[in-house]
């Protein structure tokens, strides 16, 4: 397969890239290319111009700002996110999720920002960024914006990113003593998430004081589950509490779950509960 014809521009700053993007019709941003190039090959995307931002080093890397924010540049490859000591320490669910994207070759070159901007419902990182209360930093012709993950993911391959905006970084709040985990039921061939669940938990004297739960794969966009969160808070996260939270999650997403020949919607909703229990247990180890 070969991509359709396009013109190609490689730019050397975010400002230049934004300028080019806003003054060009039917342009697409290329980061690592691991979502865009397969889409080009299959003619799912046919841009007139490709704007390659892949070498903007200013967008690559993980840092901790003050003691309250983990900042991950949009061009940071999955393998680097997965191996980052800061990500493992402050948001281990994200390290787990990025370590399960695709395969080693994909993780070497695919980027976190590209993955989030693509918003594939079966992808792993969006679910974690949503549960973590992440914020997406963007740059456009009118300057910077910061978008809550809850507002960013809007539906199947659809985000709040405007056509003339570039995703520049992902901000994850650092919450003291917060534990997290991501558990996934992977499709046996593609390894995409049939269901993926991310949990972020705080406990005090053995009792859960705060819980954030998001599910992906089973739904058209990553989705928070208030019912599962309520079922966890105030419990000792004992088996009965996990059973109740799993049932609450299954029940809450039942109506929105997507299905296909491999995994019908009822199955995905049921497995979301199972993955929730697995994630909570992994977080509390």
């Amino acid at each position: 397969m070969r991509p359709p014809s396009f013109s190609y521009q490689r730019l050397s700053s975010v400002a230049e890239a934004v300028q080019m993007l806003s003054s060009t019709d039917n342009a697409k941003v290329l980061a690592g290319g691991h979502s865009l190039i397969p889409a080009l090959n299959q003619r799912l995307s046919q841009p007139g111009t490709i704007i390659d931002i892949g070498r903007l080093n200013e967008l690559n890397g993980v840092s901790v700002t003050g003691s309250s924010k983990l900042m991950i540049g949009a061009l940071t490859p999955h393998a680097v996110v997965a191996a980052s000591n800061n990500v493992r320490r402050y948001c281990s669910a994200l390290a787990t999720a990025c370590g399960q994207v695709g395969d080693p070759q994909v993780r070497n070159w695919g980027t976190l920002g590209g993955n989030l901007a693509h918003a594939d419902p079966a992808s792993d990182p969006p679910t974690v960024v949503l549960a973590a209360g992440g914020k997406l930093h963007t740059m456009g012709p009118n300057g910077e914006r910061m978008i809550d993950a809850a507002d960013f993911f809007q539906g199947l391959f659809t985000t709040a990113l405007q056509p003339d905006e570039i995703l520049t970084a992902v901000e994850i709040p650092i919450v003291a003593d917060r534990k997290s985990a991501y558990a996934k039921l992977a499709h046996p061939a593609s390894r995409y998430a049939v269901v993926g669940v991310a949990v972020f938990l705080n406990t005090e004297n053995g009792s859960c004081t705060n819980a954030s739960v998001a599910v992906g794969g089973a739904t058209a966009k990553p989705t928070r589950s208030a019912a599962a969160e309520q079922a966890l808070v105030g419990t000792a996260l004992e088996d009965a509490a996990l059973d109740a939270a799993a049932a609450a999650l299954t029940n809450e997403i039942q109506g929105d779950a997507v299905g296909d020949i491999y995994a019908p919607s009822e199955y995905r909703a049921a497995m979301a509960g199972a993955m929730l229990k697995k994630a909570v247990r992994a977080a509390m180890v």
Partner: protein
Amino acid sequence: MKVTVTVNGKRYERDIDPRMLLVHFLREELGLTGTNIGCDTSQCGACTVHLDGKSLKSCTCLAAQADGREVTTIEGLAQGDQLHPMQQAFWEKHGLQCGYCTPGMIMATTAFLKTNPHPTEEEIRHALEGNMCRCTGYQNIVAAVKTASERM
């Protein structure tokens, strides 16, 4: 557009269509047909090469993205008649049957050993998740990687 890519230590300058994939650049522009095209969809790993030392599926990269960078293909591993230890181990352990996936397997595993020089069998199997073989059942491939890791 003009690109300059260093492949197996040699600099090549070519005028290409921006839509050209790296795998087509290697095979059609440079005549390096050791890199195979399998699935065309970033899954099978037959087209794996190294880009700046890291493994990459060359069907999922524009040649333009490799401009100014270094590529190593299966043709770049042996030193004259001296096979790379991974190639030698695949031969000795019979880590192939039809051989179609082999260049990709060898490029993926040589990159992997740079990050994990002494892997366990489980780690080898995990590292091969991006490379498919429809003949061997992987047993002899894993044995070959283990053997190579002991010699390198």
